[in-house]
């Protein structure tokens, strides 16, 4: 060893490369995300201008509009692309042109649809991930046991069922719950409103959670099964740890990583809503808004909605990446 040290050339002053280590990892991830966002921003602008269709014709259909009015509206849309792009970049959400279909500023429309969706999909993912991880651990640890067999069987069956069908079956099966909407007309007061909303959430949340559940269960189960044969578990047992301590302290934390990725990816898609479940339960969320925007096409609204979806996915993927570095130090040291 000593000889080797002597014979090696002088390495000079030790440099810490800027883009390595945890700091480098974080910076790299964040700049990637920003780059992706910028690309999406530019891409969206041109994508929607390639769509066919006559927004003014669409807007005037069924209205008692005078012809001069139409000419004026057209003039607004015929401005140079460059000018439109600058305006678009300056603030995509405060587009000066209202949504074509709803005739209101797009951010206002998007704003009022965000919370119902976050409430619905967020709650469902929370319930499904907690329950799914628990079921996955139980069944993976005792692989092939009775609990494993019926959990996997049931969740796979539920997973195979279309969301709208699960929604309709629940709707018909549980007639004491409201058949749609978020609130009852005329309900006031904070407590009453909360209870009323919870009451309306039961069916849609259950339907969505059922569908998500299988994903989390099977991923958690599979990654736990992978860990079962690892030597460090034998070591832990050899140290004399109880079985459930081996599971909780050693196997589960390692097996959680893939599930975390999935949860965060799904959270990114939260904002996209759950179009089918929203439709079944007349839940006025973002999924439906994007569907309505697409039918137009309502270009200003589509731009805002798509941008929001992209931001959702990019931000949560970034979160997942950063969290990975915390959970598994190997990730950032590479």
């Amino acid at each position, binding site marked *: 060893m000593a000889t080797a040290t002597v014979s090696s050339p002088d390495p000079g002053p030790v440099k810490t490369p800027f883009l390595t280590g945890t700091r480098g990892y974080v910076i790299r991830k964040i700049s990637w995300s920003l780059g992706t966002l910028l690309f999406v921003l530019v891409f969206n602008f041109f994508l929607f201008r390639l769509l*066919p*269709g*006559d927004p003014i*014709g*669409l807007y005037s259909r*069924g*209205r*008692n*509009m*005078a012809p001069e*009015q*139409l*000419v*004026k509206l057209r003039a607004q849309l*015929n401005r140079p692309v460059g000018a439109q792009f600058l305006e678009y970049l300056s603030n995509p959400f405060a587009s000066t042109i*209202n949504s074509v*279909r709803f*005739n*209101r500023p797009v951010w206002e429309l998007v704003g009022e*649809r965000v919370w*119902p969706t976050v409430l619905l999909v967020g709650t469902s993912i929370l319930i499904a991930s907690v*329950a799914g991880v628990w079921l996955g651990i139980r069944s993976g640890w005792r692989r092939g046991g*009775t609990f494993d*067999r019926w*959990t*996997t*069987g*049931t969740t796979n069956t539920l997973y195979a*069922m279309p969301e709208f069908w699960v929604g*309709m*079956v629940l*709707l*018909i*099966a*549980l*007639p*004491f719950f409201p*058949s*749609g*909407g*978020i*609130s*009852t*007309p*005329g309900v006031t007061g904070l407590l009453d409103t909360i*209870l009323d909303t919870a*009451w309306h959430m*039961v069916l849609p*949340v259950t339907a969505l*959670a*059922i569908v998500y559940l299988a994903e989390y269960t099977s991923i958690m189960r599979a990654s736990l099964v992978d860990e079962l044969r690892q030597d460090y578990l034998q070591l832990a047992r050899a140290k004399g740890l109880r079985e459930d301590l081996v599971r909780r302290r050693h196997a589960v934390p390692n097996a959680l990583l893939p599930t975390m990725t999935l949860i965060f990816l799904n959270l990114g898609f939260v904002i996209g809503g759950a179009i089918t479940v*929203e*439709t*079944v*339960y*007349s839940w*006025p969320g973002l999924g*439906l808004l994007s569907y309505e925007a697409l*039918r*137009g096409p309502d270009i200003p609204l589509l731009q805002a909605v798509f941008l929001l979806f992209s931001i959702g996915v990019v931000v949560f993927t970034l979160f997942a990446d950063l969290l990975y570095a915390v959970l598994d130090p190997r990730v950032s040291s590479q």
Partner: protein
Amino acid sequence: MHHLVRRALSVAIAAGLLAAPAATALAQAPAPAQGKVTFTVGIQSDVDSTNPFTGIVVEAYESYALMYDYLVSSKPEDVSPMPSLAESYQEAPDKKSWTYKIRAGVKWSDGQPLTARDAAYTYNRVIKGDFEQTNYGNYVTNIERAEATDDTTLVLYVKKPTPIMERLAIPILPEHIWKDIDGTEVKSFANEPENGQPIVGSGPFRLVERRKGQFLRFEANKEYWRGAPKIDELVFRVFLNADAEAQALTRGEIDFAYDLQSNVYESLKNKPGITTRSSQYPGFNEIAFNNGAALADGTPIGDGHPALKDKQVRLAISQAIDRDVLVERVLQGHGSPADTFIPPMYPALHLDPATKQTFDPAKANQILDAAGYPKGADGVRAKDGKKLELRLFVREGAESEATGEFVKTWLKDIGIEVNVKVMSEDALTEIIGQGEYDMFEWGWVVEPDPDYQMSVFTCGKRSYKDGDSIFADLSDSFYCNPEYDKLYEQQAGETDPAKRAELAKRMQQMVYDDAAYAMTYYYNDMVAYRSDKWTGFVPQPAPDGSLLFQYGIHSYLTIEPVKATSPAAAAAAEDGGMSPALIAVVVGGLAVVAVAGVLVARRRRTADADERE
């Protein structure tokens, strides 16, 4: 315990676990507002805006009619004009103005008096407005200005005599509220209740709560000049899923389900307490022909098949269509065969042609033979080497697509090859404007005043050019007949209803004889409601017309509970419980899940066993 049974049980427990949050919430079901008589209508598209200058869907116009008054309205019996906020109206002898006598003593919901000044303000705002013209521009093109000579007299000065003055459907707005909303602000003005303050209006109901995408709640105006509504509250509840709407009606969550598709309608038939109703409606569908696409100035555009410029070919096609079959098979009987473009729901204006283009393939073949389109070896007719191969564009949706398939078969029998293509309405709109079609399937809903519908067939409503682009106007057949245009101009200035009706009939005859369209059917409006709980509906027109969503507010004033019951009894009546069929569906669904779960589990066990060996 047998292991299969045990597994099935565990499946059931899993299902129970999922329903656990349901059970906790169950204990806290909110109680409905007590003591109030509420009538709830299920609608399938939300009111797009409660600002009367912005909204466009029929549900929005219904909300304006509930909140505001109009100078004139339409009679329930036959949809003919009737006085409303104007208790009488008269054209001046010199035909240069109309005078409306505004009802005295009407109040806005905030207590301010409603006068002719509010009416003059509203009309002037539309006349001078920019954005305000969007929804009502066509009503005021002929009106120069509005003037309130005193609190009860409104004078509208016209550029030339026009019959539209009896049909002015512009809601009268309160000047003291709307004067603060300028021409820019009005574009995004929501006109929704804020801080619990209802919208100021004069109509039979006032909007007190609005949740977008969910519901609108109206409170009755018990001082309404036509008499207090018999209900206290009216709710429009939005359903994006027709099956859920039907469920809600069966359970009593809603009292009236509007605008049902025929499959949902059929599923509600013969249910206890529910009456289904297929009402006469002013809509028709047609196969429209490309009569020779051109701009309004006559420059030809598009790529329509030249044979369709030949009236004989269009007539032959019209006679090859079996309208009875379409009504039976496409509409399931909810409609009637159509002939002219003003539906029979308007008996004063509708023309029932003396000789009809009835289904007669032999006659159709004969017409085409005589017109010089002999059949080729492949059975397809041709003239000057150009085959009668026509494109037929239909819209996405079961009814339009089915019509397309029928027409294709019928035209094959008379030697015409049809290529059916399905597309979205938006895509089709674009194509029609460019004249790039041969035939398409679509329809119109005709207003009580026929002017708009009649204008569709004038030369001036063909597409127009702006820069290098061609844009659609109202014409979707490119029908152009100077004689028709002359009659159109004449009726536009005819203020004698009888003479105008005569002109309207001649115009319908002309379009019918020229076969600009092959009309297919007049369709009905399908609704279902809780007849065990509600009575007092006023159909428009009598006796087969619509119960709600009419021209003018009639039913909402007279709807009442079947008999006065105590709230407790009403609540008991609402609690229908599960029907045997429902229980069967539920049990069936759970059984499928259970069996599938067991099967998968068994498979897995076998597989595991294999792996181990």
